[in-house]
């Protein structure tokens, strides 16, 4: 039942064999060595396993690896090469995270939001992050940081 698949992971081509029942999250973590997507529930509830699949945020715990064949996967490892993205920089400056377990998912959800909508309102940010549970922060420091990204960007123009 094994099948060879090829996907682009963080802009690098990766070819490997998977079983039909292999979940993309597990394959990323166990076979491809990418540890930023976290296992928080394995049921699509928490958002800790969020990745970008063809540029859209998805729950990698509810994606079959075999169906990622031919697609592009981006994780936080691929976002920042040497330097932080504006989203990460803002989250850093605002001390947004405490335990940081939800951080990779939040970073990607915010990245997708700002890609689609560079000037989100507070409500837009809340909607975009509504699928990423955080138990530490009460979200306030996260939302504030993301709004700050666009304000910084507009100031620098």
């Amino acid at each position, binding site marked *: 039942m094994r099948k060879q698949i090829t996907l682009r992971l963080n802009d690098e081509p990766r070819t490997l064999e998977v079983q039909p029942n292999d979940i993309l999250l*597990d394959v990323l*973590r*166990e076979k491809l060595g990418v*540890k*930023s997507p*976290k*296992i*928080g*529930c*394995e*049921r699509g*509830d*928490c958002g*800790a396993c969020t990745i970008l699949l063809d540029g859209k945020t998805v729950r990698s715990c509810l994606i079959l690896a075999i169906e990622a064949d031919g697609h592009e996967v981006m*994780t*936080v*490892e691929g976002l*920042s090469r040497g330097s*932080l993205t504006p989203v*990460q920089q803002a*989250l*850093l*400056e*605002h*001390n*947004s*995270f*405490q*335990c*940081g*377990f*939800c*951080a*990779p998912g939040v*970073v990607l959800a915010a990245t997708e939001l700002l890609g689609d909508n560079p000037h989100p*309102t*507070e409500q837009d*940010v*809340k*909607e975009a*992050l*509504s*699928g*990423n*549970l*955080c*138990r*530490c*922060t*009460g*979200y*306030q*420091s996260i*939302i*504030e*940081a993301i*709004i*700050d990204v666009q*304000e910084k960007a507009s100031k620098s123009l």
Partner: protein
Amino acid sequence: MIPSAVAEIAGFCMQVTRTRDPPKSGRITATKPYPVHLMKNGSSKHLEVVGKPFRKVDASAKVTGQTKFADDIVLPRMLYCKILRSHVPHALIRKIDTSKAVAMPGVVAVITGKSLPIPYGILPVSQDEHALCLDKVRMIGDPVAAVAAIDEDAAFEAMNAIEVEYDPLPVISSIQDALRSPGSAHMDDNPSRTGGPQLAGENKEAWRIHGYGDHGNVHKMVALEFGDVEEGFKQADLIREDVFFYEGNTHLPMEQHAAVAQVDGDGKLCLWSSTQTPHYVHRALAKVLEMPASRIRVIATPNGGGFGGKSDPFPHEMIVSKLALLTGRPVKVTLTREEVFYCHRGRHPVLMWVKTGAKKDGAITAMHFRSFLDGGAYGSYGVASTYYTGALQTVTYKIPNYKFEGVRVFTNKPPCGPKRGHGTPQPRYALEVHLDKIAEQLRLDPVAIRKNHLVEPYSLTSNYLRVGSMGLAACIDKVVTASDFKNKFRNLPYGKGIGLACASYLSGAGLPIYWNHMPHSGVQLRLDRQGGVCVMCGSIDIGQGSDSVLAYIIAEVLGIDPFDIRVLTADTDLTPVDLGSYSSRVTLMTGNAALEAAERARDLLIRAVSEKMNIPATRLSLSGGRLFDVENPETSISFAEAVQIAEARFGTIGTVGSYTPPPSAGKYKGAGVGPSPAYSYDAAVAEVEVDPRTGIVRVERIWIAHDIGRAINPALTLGQVEGSVYMGLGEALMEEMSYRTNRNVVHKFPSLLEYKSPTTLEMCDVKTFLIEDPDPNGPFGAKEVGQGPLLPVPPAIANAVYDAVQVRIDEVPITPDKVLSAIQKRDEKQEDEGESANGGGTGITRGVEEPHRYGPKSVPEVDWPEPVRVKPPWDGGTGKEILREAVHARE
């Protein structure tokens, strides 16, 4: 747009504001500099790090997703472990057949309780857990057998191939059942009334979940009386009784518990685990594995959230250790989310009865508080939890006569333990709502009734808790003014409401979990000749920022950049003992230990340089990475040069610091729970909107003022306050660990979908004020912030709901169905004019119409033991209990 949160440092009239344009190092701008701080050695210094909104030392790893959690660890030849858990709530294990599992491909080892027969438990008095159940299961989710296999799938298949035969036992599913089960002092002759199955032969022991405890399924009963409550009630103008219920809820850390065990070539065991208490895990492993502790190393990995849920030693930690020893290969286990729900150790469901006598001006003359805790299947921290439901009532408002009776029962459900606020949010909710009702009955302002009767700073309470700095009055003023409470209270339109509540919490438990006279926290500091500083401490960062606090304090004393410090924590081989990240103890206790170690290191440097450069030590100071002569600032050397001079003079530079809390004032039996080096204080105002058609409560905003003593880092402090408010909001409105009533108490919500926790969309706006009045016991005056700010949130919301729709919800969580039901009942009654509008209040209510309410009507009858009687300090008490003979003689 988010209105910026405000943190106001009242003690120093200093305002820090969250801003959109944060400084390089954080998100808070100080508009005025911090004052000079008087150091312990009598010198003074301008604070350069403490009080500044620095980034967390590990913030970069978090935003890049590079923090290494336990499940991220992969070792060569690592095996994967799965644990078979009981699917029945209470049964004897007749037989376990592992033969099929053992024979399956990829399976390397299968173990049962026989391999780990030694019991353990977090408290010395409750050694009632086994890594794998021996002969009996006590709840659904109890571990029965474990498999190690080459991959997770093989382990899973093998786990499912293990066959277990059970002989069912009667099921105890509630406080009432437990109190009435055969064998208890409150035994009911008709066992069928408990709802469990009838057993042939009527074996009373069969009903008993544990063979220890006070009696039957009663785990622990406590009774304490300070002063004379009956006498106090006689002096009261009003006596009021209320009954409340606080449903259990769970921590829900985003990270599922995980552990990896490895045995090295010399037979030494190393366990990496997402635990808040590596030291206690170390002790428990040594006991259960029957190995010298010196051959075991426990490394706590950064916790992906803890909140108290990773404070017990857990079966999976023992299991992977044993499997690693047996197989000689590394073994990893990561619990599923469902297993995390069964591990639990969360908030106890507590039924409470409170009777208070008050004078017309609201002064309390006496309080009698009873709590009934549903403990679940094991002891865990339960004895402490029981005392905590009665301990901190006295540290906010003056209670001259106080009586507490508490009982914890065993039930066939996942065990409860410590969750953020450990045992105190439940009574605080009851107390603050109760007080609101008293205020209304006495026609007093809810602000005045609280503020006029506060406990004095630097005083002893009736139960001998030593209150230090006490900023509650300032807290109340802040939130009342900022929220415009006085104009809004009882004046908002129907459906909108505002409510106030206060609280207090420990800055670390005054006594250790196992009795000893050693320090609670130790810090070791190593300075190398190239200027590097390494701090080693047993404390573990669970997201609260304890690694950062260590770095900030040491950087402050040594005058260096906190980001240049190597922080090495929570490794039992390398770091001195710290008891763990619980009871809000870390900033105060490890902070004090770090301060001591740093001051000793500083003194060594200064002494050596003083000798070498011939400058009096009193003139030397460390700042900005240099050591300089304060009277001649151009004369300075780098920090590294100073270390070199010191190393040349004294040899390798290393210092230690440690912290032991001051002895507690109470000497009576039960005095061990409640004392703390310092108490934090909180006041919160909640503004809510209640939709009377759906019963949905939306919290619009919470103003909260927290008496922190001193914020080591105001940015991280804000994060703790906001996180606490968030968790309190979830508990108040939606979170509950409830169980299906009809089918063997299977957990109702074993998922993050069904266990509702607030998302971004439910989180309210939070306005935070920090009140700073440095406490002499805290490092730089700091007190706790991780737990206290949760406490006032549920009662403030409940009081606001009443202000909005005039029904009392005396049960948490305040879900739409409860609100709707209370409103409907009131409206039905109002239509029926023939009946009185009394909503069936729960006790003595003199002459005032009781509002309609949703909540428990009564508490069970219990034969309470004779209380431990203690004379309050103002009656000449010594903190010791009055001897029984003396009590009888008086009677």
